[in-house]
């Protein structure tokens, strides 16, 4: 086995390194100031609450690597929830496997719809997905009249625990099934983009589409793989999200797309394509949920969460895009002229 040199690894992944350092700092600081932070229950809680966003995030990562962007996936997940709930009610309930498979298929079909518009008519992805956002959401609200579905099969809304135990202080720690689904999705995405030739092609295509085309990479396939994969993940995330909310609300996920996008780009994926890792993406999502969790434990008003998270992201982007050394050099250059 080749020896991995740590400093080299750090230099090769500056974003991930920064995220790990910041996460460690928050963890150390919080462990000192709150007894509840560094407990298994809180860790499980963090995983439970961020699993849906993580599934979305790794899906979006693939699209960003391929040089696209998608605004419609969260709304697509809402469409999936409705379709799955309605279809399964007709066949008598179904179970986890049929629910996830159906959700993944419907989601992938919606993603393929985006890909088809982007590829066949050469419309750029932000235009297409803003249009499909409105189409999906408008039609969903129109056909459902904004009514939620409460009558869902047992397997879906009855909390399925993976691990469950009582801590020394009496609090229950539990890890729910969506965390396992999330882990599977993260690993699958990692395998796709790191260990298959399709994954290498996605990076190449995202970095330089014309170059990739001349190399003989199938451009149509790249579009369908990227947007289809995000659709697939969005479908799965949609099914998993119902497990927490215990109902299907048509406008529950609209608006989530921008939060996920911010987290993924915070994790080092580049808008414009060709760069991004699963690790960074996961760390980006975790940084935001850990920040929220920490603010919560510190007793700060929930109304202030978004403000602080927004400020953190704004600061992170500014710093990560402008390495201080470069900025100082620029200022010095300016003074000398």
């Amino acid at each position, binding site marked *: 086995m080749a020896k991995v040199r740590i400093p080299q690894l750090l230099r090769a992944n500056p974003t991930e390194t920064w995220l790990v350092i910041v996460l460690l700092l928050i963890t150390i600081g919080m462990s000192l100031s709150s007894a509840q932070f560094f407990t298994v229950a809180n860790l499980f809680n963090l995983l439970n609450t961020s699993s849906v966003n993580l599934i979305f995030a790794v899906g979006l990562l693939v699209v960003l690597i391929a040089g696209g962007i998608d605004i419609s996936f969260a709304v697509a997940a809402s469409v999936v929830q409705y379709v799955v709930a309605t279809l399964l009610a007709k066949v008598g309930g179904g179970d986890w496997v049929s629910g996830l498979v159906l959700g993944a298929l419907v989601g992938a079909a919606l993603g393929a719809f985006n890909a088809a518009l982007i590829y066949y008519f050469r419309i750029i992805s932000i235009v297409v997905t803003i249009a499909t956002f*409105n189409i999906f959401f408008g039609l969903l609200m129109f056909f459902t009249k904004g009514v939620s579905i409460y009558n869902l099969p047992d397997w879906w809304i009855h909390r399925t625990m993976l691990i469950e135990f009582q801590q020394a202080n009496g609090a229950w720690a539990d890890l729910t099934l969506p965390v396992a689904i999330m882990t599977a999705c993260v690993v699958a995405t990692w395998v796709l983009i790191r260990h298959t030739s399709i994954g290498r092609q996605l990076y190449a295509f995202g970095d330089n589409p014309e170059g990739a085309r001349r190399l003989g990479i199938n451009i149509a396939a790249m579009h369908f793989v990227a947007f289809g994969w995000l659709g697939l993940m969005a479908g799965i995330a949609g099914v998993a999200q119902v497990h927490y909310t215990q109902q299907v609300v048509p406008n529950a996920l609209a608006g989530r797309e921008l939060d996920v996008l911010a987290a993924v780009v915070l994790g080092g994926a580049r808008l414009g394509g060709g760069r991004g890792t699963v690790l960074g993406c996961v760390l980006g999502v975790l940084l935001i949920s850990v920040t929220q969790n920490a603010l919560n434990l510190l007793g700060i008003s929930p109304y202030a969460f978004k403000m602080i998270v927004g*400020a953190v992201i704004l600061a992170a982007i500014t710093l990560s895009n402008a390495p201080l050394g470069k900025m100082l050099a620029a200022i010095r250059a300016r003074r000398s002229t």
Partner: protein
Amino acid sequence: MSDNPTTLDRRTQRSWFRRITTRLGAENIGLLLALVAVITFFGLMSPQFLSMDTFNSVAFQLPELGLLTLAMLMPIIAGGINLSVTFTANLCGLTLAWFLHVNGGPEAGVLAFVVGSVLAVGVGTATGLVMGPVIAYTGAHPILVSLSMMIFVRGLGEFLTRGADISGFPDFIQPLGHGSIWGFPIPLLILLLAVGAWHVLMGRTRLGFSNYMIGSNIEATRYSGIPTRRVVTWIYALSGAMCAIAGIIMMARFNSVRVGHGESYLLITVLACFLGGVNPFGGFGKVVSVFLALIVLQLLSSGLNLLGASQHLATAIWGIMLVAVMILRWAAGQLTFLRIKR
């Protein structure tokens, strides 16, 4: 070599058509056709469509979306985007509401309103003055910068209001949202003024010209001696100021301020820009075309409303329309491509 008599004849025959298309621009002709199509369709479907009621409903609803779209337009032409427009408008409305409340709420005077409005515009400009330099100096992606600004501004607004409605304003604000001058709705007048200002700014000033150049090729613009960073900062500052005007109109229209008012407009403003022929990569796009696109969108929604369909169906049709227009543009591009090839 191609100047033989027959082609010349054909050219002169076609020239009136050419002259109109070049005068109006192909974009505007398409939009005018869409406008005529929408008016004819709903005129035939519903006898009430061609009436003052429709005009009034469009005239009073269009300004909020229109002003926000103008705020979105400048950054998009510069090759960027400002995703914080809706919440910035809320925050600016909130600023004005706060100032009015400090000065007596319903009893506040005209002076308080004027000062409050100036403060609101200041807050809007300030958001742009944060985003602009971050985008211009660090090279961070505008989507990301404005997105985090959006999250921050929304959070700030929610923190200040705790999600509540702020109301209780002096009566003289009412006409700003509901009044008319000689039968002409005041919000529409304000929108027309703003469209005019933006049209002049984009077409006749150095800043507007630099904006188009930056959208086409920022490096080339920089090398030709235009201070691109300062221009980008100005663009986002002006975008924020326009959000403030939208926020003030929204406050007068709803007679209250709540963070989240008009939240759904965000993606619609981008949609309206693209529908109006603005290049998603920046560099091209006309204020007048976007205004036409806005009228088409609003007429569609008002018409569907008359037929008893919900706003949600209108939203879906807006999306379908954007896809259809993009496909038509692609087809038109293919045609010219084939013609050149031949």
